[in-house]
């Protein structure tokens, strides 16, 4: 379907598609098998100027928005979401600085992120705090001109590979979620180390590690916004980034469709290609319809976000929720269409199915997305005059 992209948006899409096809597709199976971080591809994406799509030109970016970023993420995801998450997670680490950083913080960090010279990452989740952000145990205590951070963040995408981390820690634990603050911590700071690389079901080329803080001292000016703003920073960041997960889902689903349509045209049973069977056609019809619906929603939400409205939580959650549920279903069906071959590692759809599951879990489980949407419905209804 034609979404009437501008010339610039079409260029972004074409460039990301070319990189996906020429640089990612030939190595995706090997990256998955070896659980190897795709540094070579990150360098290509950096050289192609794609890391700064959503960053203003004054900070070295391209000056686009969430939508432009979504177009690039979708194309990369069409061949490998292990690669696309490594790319997109740098944006997740950058958004807190972009949205809440001081002029000095923006000038210092955003150009490095926009050029892809350094990757960023976002540290929110802990062993006892995921959906329940109030359970955060990592603390930051002001001591003179420095904050001293202690605690451990878990399952951090780009952990160990990224050099710029935005981390949520409690500055006033007694106040619960209102006592959290956001900080910028650079790799190499004494007292900041990384746990082991996690072994995952899917997105195995991406790096997932613990961030370990042991009396890690950072300059006071690395506080983002003010003390107590940590959860607002986190929530606004996720509001901005969730359509990116939606784009991963749309790209992944499309990639699975691409593979199994091609297969179904070639695979012959009962003397005819299996795509001639209505059973297969109906499955493909549902897969394509659901994916197109997800794409339309994700694009609409990304454009809505770029119009800078007051509150995007509900729309943003809907895009992530719907698209990732579609990606899970479509990839399961893609394996089914390809039968025994689909289940084999020689073909890419089993990886796509393994990869899809994370989309329903990270950046807020789909149950949490429903909570966000539910809360928004209640709020809207309560605000209406009878």
């Amino acid at each position, binding site marked *: 379907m034609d979404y009437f992209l501008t010339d610039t948006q079409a*260029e972004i899409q074409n*460039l990301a598609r070319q990189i996906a096809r020429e640089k990612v597709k030939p190595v995706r199976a090997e990256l998955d098998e070896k659980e190897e971080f795709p540094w070579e591809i990150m360098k290509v994406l950096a050289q*192609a100027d794609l890391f700064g*799509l959503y960053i203003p030109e004054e900070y070295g970016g*391209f000056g686009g928005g969430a939508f432009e970023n979504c177009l690039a993420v979708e194309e990369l995801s069409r061949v490998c979401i292990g690669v696309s998450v490594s790319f997109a997670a740098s944006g997740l680490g950058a958004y807190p600085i972009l949205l809440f950083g001081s002029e000095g913080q923006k000038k210092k960090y955003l150009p490095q992120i926009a050029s892809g010279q350094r990757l960023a990452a976002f540290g929110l989740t802990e062993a006892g705090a995921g959906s329940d952000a109030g359970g955060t145990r990592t603390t930051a205590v002001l001591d003179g001109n420095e904050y001293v951070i202690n605690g451990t963040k878990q399952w951090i995408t780009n952990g160990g590979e990224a050099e710029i981390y935005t981390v949520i820690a409690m500055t006033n634990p007694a106040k619960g979620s209102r006592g959290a603050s956001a900080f910028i911590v650079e790799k190499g700071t004494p007292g900041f180390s990384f746990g082991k690389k996690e072994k995952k079901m899917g997105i195995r080329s991406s790096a997932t590690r613990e961030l370990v803080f042991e009396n890690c001292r950072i300059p006071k000016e690395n506080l983002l916004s003010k003390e107590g703003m940590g959860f607002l920073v986190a929530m606004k960041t996720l509001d901005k980034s969730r359509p990116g997960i939606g784009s991963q889902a749309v790209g992944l689903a499309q990639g699975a469709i691409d593979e199994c349509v091609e297969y179904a045209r070639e695979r012959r049973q009962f003397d005819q290609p299996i795509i001639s069977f209505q059973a297969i056609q109906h499955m493909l019809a549902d897969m394509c319809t659901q994916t197109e619906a997800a794409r339309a929603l994700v694009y609409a939400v990304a454009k809505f976000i770029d119009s800078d409205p007051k509150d995007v939580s509900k729309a943003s959650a809907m895009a992530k929720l719907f698209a990732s549920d579609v990606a899970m279903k479509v990839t399961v069906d893609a394996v089914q269409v390809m039968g025994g071959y689909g289940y084999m590692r020689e073909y890419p759809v089993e990886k796509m199915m393994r990869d899809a599951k994370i989309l329903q879990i990270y950046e807020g489980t789909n149950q949490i997305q429903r909570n966000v949407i539910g809360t928004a419905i209640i709020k809207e209804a309560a605000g209406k005059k009878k």
Partner: protein
Amino acid sequence: MNIAVCVKQVPDASEVKIDKATGTMVREGVPAILNPFDTYAVEEAICLKEKHGGKVTTVTMGPPQAGDVLKHTVAMGADDVMLISDRAFAGADTWATSYTLGLGLKKLDSLDLVICGKQAIDGDTAQVGPGIAENLGLPFVAYVRKIVDVSNGKMKVERLIEDGYEVVEVSLPAVITVVKEINTPRMPSLKGKMKAKSLEIKPLSAEAIGAEAEKIGLAGSPTKVMKVFSPPPKGNRERIEGTPDEQAARLVEKLKGLKII
């Protein structure tokens, strides 16, 4: 370093068909691309610029639509382009082309280096690179696989030969052709693509480069094509199957039978 890269627009070889009646390539409907060997030349020029500073200018001779390949080079990171285009250039062989490109290159200020791909995938002659060097009166090194060092007005390179490579030192300015072993050409960048999109290319005519009428186009081309044909398929062939040992044994048997050995 001021570097010029000569490039050519060619039909995408993976899509080419041959007209059986005339023996020539069917160009209609075939996408035109930047000659793949030239992408290595462009990449090497950009790498040298990144290392030593300076400017990269890409140069082509061709019809106005050949400007598209110049835009491709800008998307990769070339700074400036030169399109030499005039109906009078039509029918040029490698001799006339070398003369014409040479004149264009002479219009560029203080050139340190001219890089060409080793050959174009349509003509496959590999003659234009050395032809340009001759027209400019510059030293020439073919089939460069690595630029080892550039300093004090000299360049040390490795050039590929059949059974290895030679290390050659050449004074600058010089002309070189490069082989695909030299680098991995980069993807275009988004900023480069946007720059290329808005780029207006003004073609240089035969007059603008000061070309003499009898030395360009068909008139300036000594090459006369007598006949173009597809070689007929080879006669009877036989495939010998089996393990390498078995294949060798059977081959010897057959050659003996044919009284060749």
